[in-house]
């Protein structure tokens, strides 16, 4: 089908539909991107806070080498569905206590994300390393890994909503422009020259 061979009526409808859907699509996409970036930031903050709480609660256990108590503290993370793995490492970097969901495995030695900001995105996972201290002494490091399922879910939902709205706006544009195009394409209407 050649666009140039379409009637003026169709061309007008098509132009309106395309313009409006593109505007809706672009504006939703920019919201989507902004929202996902800030949500990613929020997730990082949330996981860091989580690490601080767990780190505080397990500091004494790791200082007193009480592995069952440390494991018990980590197992409280079952309540957080997105945290798939957690581990406490001794100051020498050896694993001391761990927790994981769905048989995920953990590195035996501390991953090298401790340097710098304390978190990193690795593949589809968010990892946080938090220094555990007792009375200012470094007694160990806590490692948390989140599968960012909330982020995935949000991205998917948001994209679906964007898509539906773009379709709806195209449909509305079709209805409105079908009516309005008559102003131009209807032969019965008078073309006035200034």
């Amino acid at each position: 089908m050649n666009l140039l061979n379409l009637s003026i009526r169709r061309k007008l409808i098509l132009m309106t539909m395309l313009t409006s859907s593109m505007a809706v699509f672009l504006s939703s996409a920019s919201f989507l991107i902004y929202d996902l970036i800030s949500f990613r930031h929020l997730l990082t903050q949330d996981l860091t806070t989580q690490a601080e709480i767990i780190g505080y609660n397990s500091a004494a256990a790791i200082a007193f080498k009480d592995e069952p108590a440390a494991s018990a503290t980590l197992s409280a993370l079952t309540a957080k569905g997105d945290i798939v793995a957690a581990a406490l490492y001794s100051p020498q970097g050896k694993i001391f206590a761990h927790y994981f969901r769905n048989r995920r495995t953990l590195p035996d030695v501390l991953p090298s994300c401790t340097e710098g900001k304390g978190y990193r995105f690795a593949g589809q996972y968010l990892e946080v390393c938090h220094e555990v201290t007792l009375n200012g002494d470094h007694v160990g490091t806590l490692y948390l890994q989140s599968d960012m399922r909330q982020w995935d879910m949000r991205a998917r939902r948001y994209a679906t909503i964007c898509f539906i709205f773009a379709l709806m706006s195209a449909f509305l544009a079709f209805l409105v422009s079908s009516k309005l195009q008559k102003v131009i394409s209807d032969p019965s209407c008078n073309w006035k020259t200034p």
Partner: protein
Amino acid sequence: MLLPIVSAAAATGAHAQDTDASSEYLIKAGFIYNFASLVQWPSTSFSQADSPIVIAVLGEERFGTTLDRVLQGKKIDGRPFIVKYFRSTSELVKSVGKPKECQILYVSSSAMPHLGEAIQAVRGMPVLTIGEMPGFAKSGGMINFVLEDNRVRFEVNVKAAKDADLNISSRLLALARIVQPPESDGRKTE
């Protein structure tokens, strides 16, 4: 940063193969330091803001130089540590008979026969008593080291600590076996 010696204590772990005398005491020394950071003394037990935390060790010197080495250069809230060794209770009573003279009393197993006198010497004073023999916590001591499955663990007599105006952190109590003195209802919880 931790001094290498405490890192070494952390590395050894409290496992069976490590519980020969020296590493056991290395672990205990590290634990004593941890206890000090999780116990709050009343402000009256120090004469100055940077007064040292004095540890009196009663009985045979099982620690050798371990305790001094572990605590060397360490501070809690700006307070350094001083370790004093006493062979007999009378020596101890003479030295720590007044408050503010000592904050921690460690009773070695060799001083068991004089346990009653030792505890009596610091009764009513804000002194954290730590021991390493069965029944220490029940006899009025506050923290007692026990070996459980070849791991160093500890019992805490909360009432004794409370009576001495010492505040033991819940983070420490969560890891301890709580011991009730026999004059109370005798319940024992783990």
